[in-house]
């Protein structure tokens, strides 16, 4: 059975071009990039080139790129590193719909004396701007708001937030893990101070991420024990991962517009057909301000895990905000923050596409989805015959 992969917000396929490029870094080009000999030094040169490629995609200076181990590390390092560098300020502002990499980190700081403000969102998942303006003050060390939500794809007005934060003399970090490669960025023209990205969300391997740190932003080192990454993040570099991320960034920069048009076309086709063919289904999140690849749909009266397993039987991979898939007893914190009724949150499915998806895959899923929904509704006590 062929796998139809619609779970690209979870992780993505490593691009063939990326894989080809990183192969030699295991058994042949295994030298330490910091070594004095040419054998290691040549790897150092490749890492420099990868840094330049990542900087080109982000529109920043290569010196503003810190390679990390993953998006979560970038988020943790940004938040903790800013607070450590500004010890006299005690307030953090974030949103209720952040990825746990940000939310848990902030809440943990809340346990250690920081005041943590979690901004709410409206029914479309849009940020409460008024609350942000009200809350940001002289004591605010950091504002951290995601660029786009991983579950709904809703994009936040981070450039405006960054401007506001700057005018108030605070620091702004954004988790852009779902955005890099999907929305063109130019950080040299932006007021964003720190930005996190993750390699495996844009067709690079797992185990590599980036923390962008604007020049002049005070950030405490987060890994000690070496000179790597300007002493901020010590440790021998993950050379294959970093080289791979460089290639992935290059590919993304080259194809971003064309790809997004294709992906958006497929996503819209899938979404419109499902909403039309499946009664009592609804879209979660602001339809206008959304990533081109993400669609989050709730199916009333049925449960997400059951839908996923049915899809899985047809080789279709998606994800759900239902309680049962998380192992916790409550559905997605993002959908709950948006005020999506529990009944709909339990039956939510996220489809997230990539450039590797085809129209045939979309058509096949459109064909199967109503069948699955009807089948489960036949079992449901909440659907009258």
């Amino acid at each position, binding site marked *: 059975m062929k796998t139809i992969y619609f779970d690209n917000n979870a992780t993505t396929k490593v691009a063939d071009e990326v894989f080809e490029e990183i192969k030699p870094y295991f058994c042949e080009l295994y030298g330490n990039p910091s070594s004095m000999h040419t054998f290691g030094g040549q790897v150092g040169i490749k890492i420099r080139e990868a840094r330049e490629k990542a900087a080109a995609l982000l529109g920043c200076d290569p010196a503003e790129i810190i390679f990390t181990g993953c998006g979560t590390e970038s988020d943790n390092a940004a938040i903790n590193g800013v607070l450590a560098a500004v010890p006299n300020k005690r307030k953090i502002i974030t949103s209720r719909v952040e990825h746990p990499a940000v939310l848990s980190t902030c809440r943990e700081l809340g*346990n250690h004396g920081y005041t943590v403000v979690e901004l709410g969102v409206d029914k479309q998942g849009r940020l409460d701007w008024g609350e942000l303006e009200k809350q940001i003050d002289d004591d605010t060390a950091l504002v951290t708001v995601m660029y786009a939500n991983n579950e709904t794809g809703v994009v936040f007005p981070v450039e405006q937030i960054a401007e506001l934060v700057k005018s108030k003399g605070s620091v702004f970090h954004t988790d852009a893990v779902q955005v890099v490669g999907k929305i063109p960025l130019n950080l040299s023209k932006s007021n964003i101070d720190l930005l996190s990205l993750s390699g495996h969300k844009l067709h690079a391997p797992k185990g590599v991420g980036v923390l962008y740190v604007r020049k002049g932003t005070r950030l405490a080192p987060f890994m000690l024990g070496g000179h790597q990454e300007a002493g901020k993040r010590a440790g021998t570099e993950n050379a294959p991962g970093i080289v791979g991320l460089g290639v992935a960034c290059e590919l993304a920069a080259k194809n971003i517009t064309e790809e997004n048009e294709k992906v958006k076309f497929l996503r819209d086709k899938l979404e419109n057909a499902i909403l039309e063919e499946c009664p009592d289904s609804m879209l979660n999140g602001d339809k206008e301000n959304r990533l081109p690849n993400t669609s989050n749909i709730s199916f009333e009266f049925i*449960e997400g895990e*059951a839908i996923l*397993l049915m899809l899985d039987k047809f080789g279709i991979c998606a994800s759900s905000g239902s309680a049962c898939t998380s192992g916790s*007893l409550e559905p997605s914190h993002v959908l709950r923050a948006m005020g999506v009724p529990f009944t709909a949150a*339990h039956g939510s499915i996220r489809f997230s596409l990539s450039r590797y998806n085809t129209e045939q895959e979309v058509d096949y899923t459109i064909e199967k989805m109503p069948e699955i929904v009807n089948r489960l509704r036949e*079992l*449901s*006590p*909440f659907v009258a015959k």
Partner: protein
Amino acid sequence: MWEYTDKVKDHFFNPHNVGEIEEPDGVGEVGSLACGDALKLTFKLDKNGKIKDAKFKTFGCASAIATSSVLTEMIKGLTLDEAAKITNRDIADYLGGLPEQKMHCSVMGREALEAAIENYRTGGKKKHELEGNVVCTCFGVTDKEIERVIRDNDLTTVEQVTNYCKAGGGCGGCQGQIEKIIEKIQGDKAGQLTETPPRWAGRLTNIQKIQLIQQTINEQIRPALRAHGGDIELIDVEGDKVIVAFRGMCAQCRLTEFTMKEVVEAKLREFVSKDLFVEEDKESAKEPHNHRG
């Protein structure tokens, strides 16, 4: 991904006895849309008082559907007395086991069966009612139900109770009460949780004691309250009296005095000193609620 047995998968993909029996002898309905799973069981008896036919309708995950399906299979041909003896463990065993966190699905099956039998025995008039006192307000679980799952499955920890009947899995405010129920039923077996002496053995100075209380509130108590939009603040410590204020959702909860105080007290006694007792600061409780942030 959950590791389901082949039998679970089989009953999920090809469920048996889906539907509702017309003019049934017994109907059992448990769960709700909000809770994430719900089951409606109907059965019909033959002239010898044995279950002739049983059907189900279920809203829920794969294990909820599979559980319902096997339940209808298991009870066919049984008298009601025989059927009433089926435990959730029997249902789970029949499926070749369920993941621990999915055991509540088997409990839901047993509850629906009980409700249906009760419905028949009361002449079809009585709908299922909760027996006992509600302990977990988030999921509406009573002390009787908690006692039942502890006995049927030989449970010894709060986490297990949550896996089996959801109690304690929401705001966590009832976890202290669940511990007490476990202790009552399991006696020494449940000792690990409540009878451990404070982890701090030496004599504490006042400063150390206050720091340790604050640390315990931060690490052991607050996260559970936060999960449901509540919060707690340490106001003062006078000798062994710890004065706290509840914020957000916790402050609005009618059960504050009974449950929250007990949970906080139990945690502080476990981690700081056996002599501590907790009082709620009435002044600050009257103030406008300080929601998160």
